[in-house]
């Protein structure tokens, strides 16, 4: 099961990359798959980077690291309304 946000991102990407990305994601999530990928450093890193990006985009993972995306977005909205910004 691919994270919905990640699936949306993959679908936004070029069609020719999608099968490869889904394969990478399925391998990187399995210990044996990850071990296989480690023989091919660029593929290992590309697959892991996608998974890690999605994981830390989740407020539950980002919050303990001091990042509150909702608060940043809310502050932006408030500032734009208060100051009449576009």
């Amino acid at each position, binding site marked *: 099961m691919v994270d919905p946000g990640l699936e949306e991102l993959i679908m936004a*990407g070029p069609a020719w*990359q999608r099968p490869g990305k889904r394969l990478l994601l399925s391998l990187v999530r399995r210990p044996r798959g990850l071990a296989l990928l480690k023989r091919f450093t660029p593929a290992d890193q590309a697959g892991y980077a996608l998974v890690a*990006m999605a994981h830390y985009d989740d407020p539950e993972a980002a919050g303990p690291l001091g990042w509150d995306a909702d608060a940043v*977005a809310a502050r932006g909205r408030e500032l734009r309304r208060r100051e009449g910004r576009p």
Partner: protein
Amino acid sequence: MSRALTADACVIGAGAGGAVLAAELAEGGMDVVLLEQGPAHDPDGFTARPVQMLGRLYREGGQTITLGDPPIALPLGRGLGGTTLVNSGTCFRTPPEVLDRWRAEFGLDVDERSMRPHFERVEQALSVAEVTPELAGENAAVARRAAEALGWSHGYLRRNAKGCVGSGVCAFGCPTSAKQHTGITYVPRARAAGARVLTGTGVRRVVVNGGQARGVEARAADGAALEVRAPLVAVAAGTVHTPALLARSGLGADSGQLGRNLSLHPATAAFALMDHDVDMARGVPQSFYIDEFAHEGILFEGAAGPPSYVAMALPMTGRRHQQVMAAYLRLAQFGLMVSDTSRGWLKFMRSRPVIRYDLDHGDLEKFRRGIARLGQLFEAAGAREVFLPLPAHVAPQRARRRDLKLMAFHPLGTARADARPTHGVVDGQLAVHGVRGAYVADGSAVPSALGVNPQLTIMALATRLAFHLLARR
């Protein structure tokens, strides 16, 4: 259903070049139609979450990649504002030595003095100002202290931002609308001056008859065929997509240069684990530069972002990645950009760009030296640990092309300007050679790598073109 519009000028693309040109022409009294393939983005939808925003604000979800050695990620903005919507906002004027080279090598009638009023006009329109140390944040302060200790030339960057509070997500949609991208500056100016701005509109071809541009054929957002009749057409669809449109229109191919001469300013970045909190997303991500090695074609610039961005960029996997991410607050990052001599080319398969770019030996050497110096920089900053963008156990001096983890943000040159029709797609006034009324007004016309971020150069050239066209009326 089809419909037709008539105008004095049709501008294709609302990014750095097209939006500026459209606004200046409209304010100068021309009846302008500005066509943009992407949408108008509502900043209320900017969530400060990279995974969501990549899919919405970038072409191909930011996953455009070059083929070659090594492959290079090439994210491009999509929508009103183009890539100015998602860039770091860094503003450099074209270096005088680059303008001198354009004059000598490409026969362009440009120099520092003649370009100055155009730069000043753009800088005023975009509220360009130097970042303050307070707003730059601790990530920049780490680099500044190190540069001072090493005696390397450095400074705070100039940016097109007004009322910035350092949200830390310039590349993922500025939530405060502080970044003065062309979608909120020049496009509203164009509208106020009477220009018609159509989003979601894909242009199929530029229509030329008897050697004279007559307008464009397009597909409107509702799917209807759209014809814009105009004796002046300016293509500003970006360095990757402008050559495709010109080729579909049978324009610009005579020189043999269309789609060639692609430069990218390839870039990479290193991380460092510090003993104190950096909290890199608090402040302007790209706020500081080190130009000590600019004469070698290496420019260091700040880079930073929220945890998901860092998680994607860290050069490691597994447990080690998790350990380093757990110390996110103590991570610092700094990047380097190479003024490349490598040149790529692009072709299109079913309207998708196929981009070929191989790093030449000279640029590989720049990366080897640059990455080693990034390590030196962070050591001088007192880093506890440095994470270079290379596989484990590969020393910078021995890095191979395939070891490099590169991105690029500044594609240029695929419809380059050259006074000679045999050497360039457009002439010194950005007119397509051999056609009356057809122009190129984006990074594709920029004839060489700049060594600095290109948005101001593209905007100043578009301003220059606008005044040239208005003077001819």
